[in-house]
């Protein structure tokens, strides 16, 4: 009996360690109150080899969440673990293995890619000059031109080249596709998908261009007014959620507990349901539309319960 108990405990520890090893990022109960804005009980788990998309309108708290995760801003409470280590205790060690792209912060535009290479050689232990140059060639970025001459797409590619050139295990990207044309966006999304191919690397990416995340994200986390409204796998969202478009009379027959939120349009009601199969069984609606992330976001934010 004793032996079996010991074995069970060892099994549990092994499982816990395995789980810890499987998760690249764990955020627990993150809270921050800053200049009238609150981040409330943020909880996230990002497993290895996965991409998590943070969605939400401008000012919802995506950037603050990312900056809190990276310890760039002080939090009031909560814990962030990256690679199983606490960001506050092992910040330098963790940051050696993270590649970061920030929307609102970068090097001076007076620096060239060549300058940046000289700087970064001294910053990251694993900085690979050849890999950086390879990315510059691949992204068609000039070596000796100041980045102020670059287009938005070129600037973003430069940021991404920097983020990738020290073999990071985690990429943290804040709005990496904003302001880019569809071709540049598609190229950048391909780079991200290549990055996680090895199965050991992960990406946390925020974007208000939800269609980008529909293509690449495995998990979707929706933030609004500093709170996580939902965090699910993309498939769970895309397969289970649905939009019922109905008249006022039809809407009034729906039980409040059977939908998430509804939005009144000019001629109809858009009702967001979390389990369309169950809903179909209970109500007589033949067509339930598959929502886009945009639809879900808009109804959650603008809709009523």
């Amino acid at each position, binding site marked *: 009996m004793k032996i079996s108990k010991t074995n069970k405990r060892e099994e549990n520890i092994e499982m816990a360690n395995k789980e810890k090893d499987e998760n690249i990022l764990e955020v627990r109960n993150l809270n921050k109150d800053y200049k009238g804005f609150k981040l409330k009980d943020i909880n996230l788990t990002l497993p290895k080899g996965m991409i998590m998309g943070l969605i939400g309108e401008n000012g919802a708290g995506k950037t603050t969440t990312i900056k809190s995760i990276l310890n760039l801003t*002080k939090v009031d409470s909560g814990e962030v673990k990256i690679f199983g280590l606490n960001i506050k205790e092992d910040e330098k060690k963790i*940051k050696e293995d993270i590649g970061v792209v920030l929307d609102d912060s*970068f*090097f001076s535009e007076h620096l060239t890619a060549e300058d940046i290479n000289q700087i970064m050689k*001294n910053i990251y232990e694993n900085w690979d000059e050849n890999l950086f140059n390879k990315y510059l060639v691949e992204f068609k970025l000039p070596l000796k031109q100041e980045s102020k001459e670059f287009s938005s797409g070129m600037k973003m590619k430069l940021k991404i080249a920097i983020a990738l050139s020290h073999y990071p295990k985690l990429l*943290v990207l804040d709005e990496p596709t904003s302001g880019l044309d569809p071709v540049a966006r598609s190229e950048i999304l391909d780079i991200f998908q290549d990055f996680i191919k090895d199965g050991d690397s992960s990406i946390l990416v925020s974007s208000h261009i939800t269609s980008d995340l529909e293509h690449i994200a495995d998990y979707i986390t929706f933030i609004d007014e500093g709170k996580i409204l939902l965090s699910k796998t993309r498939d769970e969202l895309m397969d289970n959620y649905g939009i019922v478009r109905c008249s006022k009379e039809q809407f009034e027959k729906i039980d409040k507990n059977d939908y998430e939120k509804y939005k009144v349009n000019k001629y109809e009601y858009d009702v967001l349901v979390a389990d369309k199969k169950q809903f179909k069984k209970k109500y007589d609606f033949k067509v339930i539309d598959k929502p886009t992330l945009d639809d879900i976001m808009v109804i959650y934010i603008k809709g009523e319960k």
Partner: protein
Amino acid sequence: MNIIKGLILKDLLQLKSYWKTLIIYTVIFILAGAVQETEKGINVMIIFMLTFGFGMFAMASFNYDEQAKADSYLLSFPLSKEQIVLARYILVILATIIGAIVGVIFCIVINLVTNSQVVFPDMTELAYTAIGGIFGVSIVEAIQIPCAYKWGAEKGRIYLFIVAAAIILMGIGLLTIAQNSNLNFPISEIAYLMGSFLPIFLIVLTALIYYTSYKFSYKIYENKE
């Protein structure tokens, strides 16, 4: 140490568009010195202005980081806030010292070139002037850097004047109080007694000023969001 080197390199590389301005600034003061007759005052002017100019050149790196809002990005690298502040101080101090050295070198050259007889200038005097120049500039920088960390490079300059004015007013106030109370400070006697120790005293005081300023700046930067 590599990280500090990388940060200093970043500042130097982003200041490259300023190099031309610095060279023109240096040439103007050297030419102004070369055409003057009285050599002593000119030596002081050249050394002081170049020390000040080089120091301010390094201070301009604040502007570039501020424009690019580079702080968050830099802090996403494996480095600490302390290293960022330290690198900035090392750059400013080195630039100030180099400015003084360049000033001394040009004073020697001007003396040798413009004097009808080849007379080597008094090196001790030039060294004392350089130390005095660095000391004077260190006071400005020691106030300006924490102001830049607290309020940003642009606003920091305005606050520099406010803080400097407050210090001068306090000094005048203390002197007035001392005079009204008939207290006699034996300043000249103290200076005489210090004699050749004065440069060493100034060097120690300059180091202390920079160190105190660095501690202030770090504290401000550490608490900054």
